[in-house]
């Protein structure tokens, strides 16, 4: 074995070791790397009182109700639904049928009390006319695009 091949193996093995190390580390902290929990996660998670977390999903169509400063809506991942209440300014992209991430805690009555709401944007970019044409032809699904609606639910189950 020449010195060059030895160095090649050394570099390759070194990289492999570093990658394995980082991979193990990331899978160990995967729960914390994940930015938000879905409504289904929320049902299975054991939460302590007032534990802060982020809830992510789609704003259910027709669920947004305003009461003075407070906005109430339902976050869904198409399997489970969670009632959310929030008092504050909503981002521009907050819309029914759109992705949203709410930060706050689960009140004893099962309502998620958010003190911060972020809009989640999906990967679909199109001009307004195209979006309208899609809606008219019936190729439109909640959340923007045929690919986008099951997006959050599918991603949940695919998470290692």
């Amino acid at each position: 074995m020449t010195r060059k091949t030895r160095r090649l193996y050394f570099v390759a093995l070194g990289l492999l070791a570093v990658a394995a190390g980082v991979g193990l580390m990331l899978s160990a902290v995967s729960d914390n790397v994940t930015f938000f929990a879905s409504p289904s996660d929320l049902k299975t998670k054991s939460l302590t009182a007032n534990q802060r977390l982020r809830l992510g999903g789609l704003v259910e169509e027709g669920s947004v109700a305003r009461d003075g400063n407070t906005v109430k809506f339902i976050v869904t991942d198409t399997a489970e639904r969670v009632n959310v209440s929030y008092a504050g300014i909503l981002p521009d992209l907050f819309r029914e049928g759109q992705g949203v991430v709410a930060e706050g805690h689960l009140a004893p009555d099962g309502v998620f009390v958010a003190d911060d709401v972020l809009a989640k944007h999906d990967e679909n970019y199109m001009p307004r006319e195209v979006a309208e044409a899609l809606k008219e032809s019936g190729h439109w699904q909640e959340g923007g695009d045929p690919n986008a609606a099951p997006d959050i639910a599918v991603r949940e189950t695919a998470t290692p």
Partner: protein
Amino acid sequence: MHKYANPTRFMKIANTVMPWTTAIAVICFVIGLPVALYTSPPDYQQGDTVRIMYIHVPAAWLALMAYMVTAGGSAVFLIWRHTIAHVIARASAPVGAVFCALCLFTGMLWGKPMWGTPWVWDARLTSMLILLFLYLGYIALGDAFDDQERGDKAQAVLALVGSVNVPIIHFSVEWWNTLHQPSIVTMQGLTINAQMALPLLLMVGAFQCFYISVVVIRLRAELLSAKIRVARQNLAASGVPVAAE
């Protein structure tokens, strides 16, 4: 492949390529920028804010590509000891760092009105910030050693270790829930409308060609300064007094 480890031979190719990449970069910018910023349609959700994407996405891709060049060059340098590979790695890093910073900055400009916050510590944003720190660390480490040879090796090792971050950045939006959207390039094709994909591709072409041209200019400067260093050493060895650098 080892034939091109010779700096003179390599620069001959680089110098031939460079006018072409410069020309393509200029053409792509001249057509792409007005299309991206004025004539392309506003997005159905984001309105005109979508135009930030035409800078943000090419900058992000370039930041990743420049890092892969740095890491690849470092691997070739460590294994085959080709100095030119290390010079390329060093030339690429500051360019990549600038575009990485541009990507983070434009992302924050977009995030404030769209998400409602300029910054969150989700997997994509955090790993991209780590890439910027890797770049800065790499650049700083190269000049931190008195012994140039040891500095070169340390730098190359850092670049290689940091390369683990590249797939993490790419797959972060698939492996974990992130606030950042998933990639617009999927196995099924682009999730972006053709009218918007065109200016995006033009801008990507412009950025990539600009990068190649800048790296070639930096290579020329680096090789010239190496020549001057050797000439000075030879002069000093022959006993002629030389002015300090």
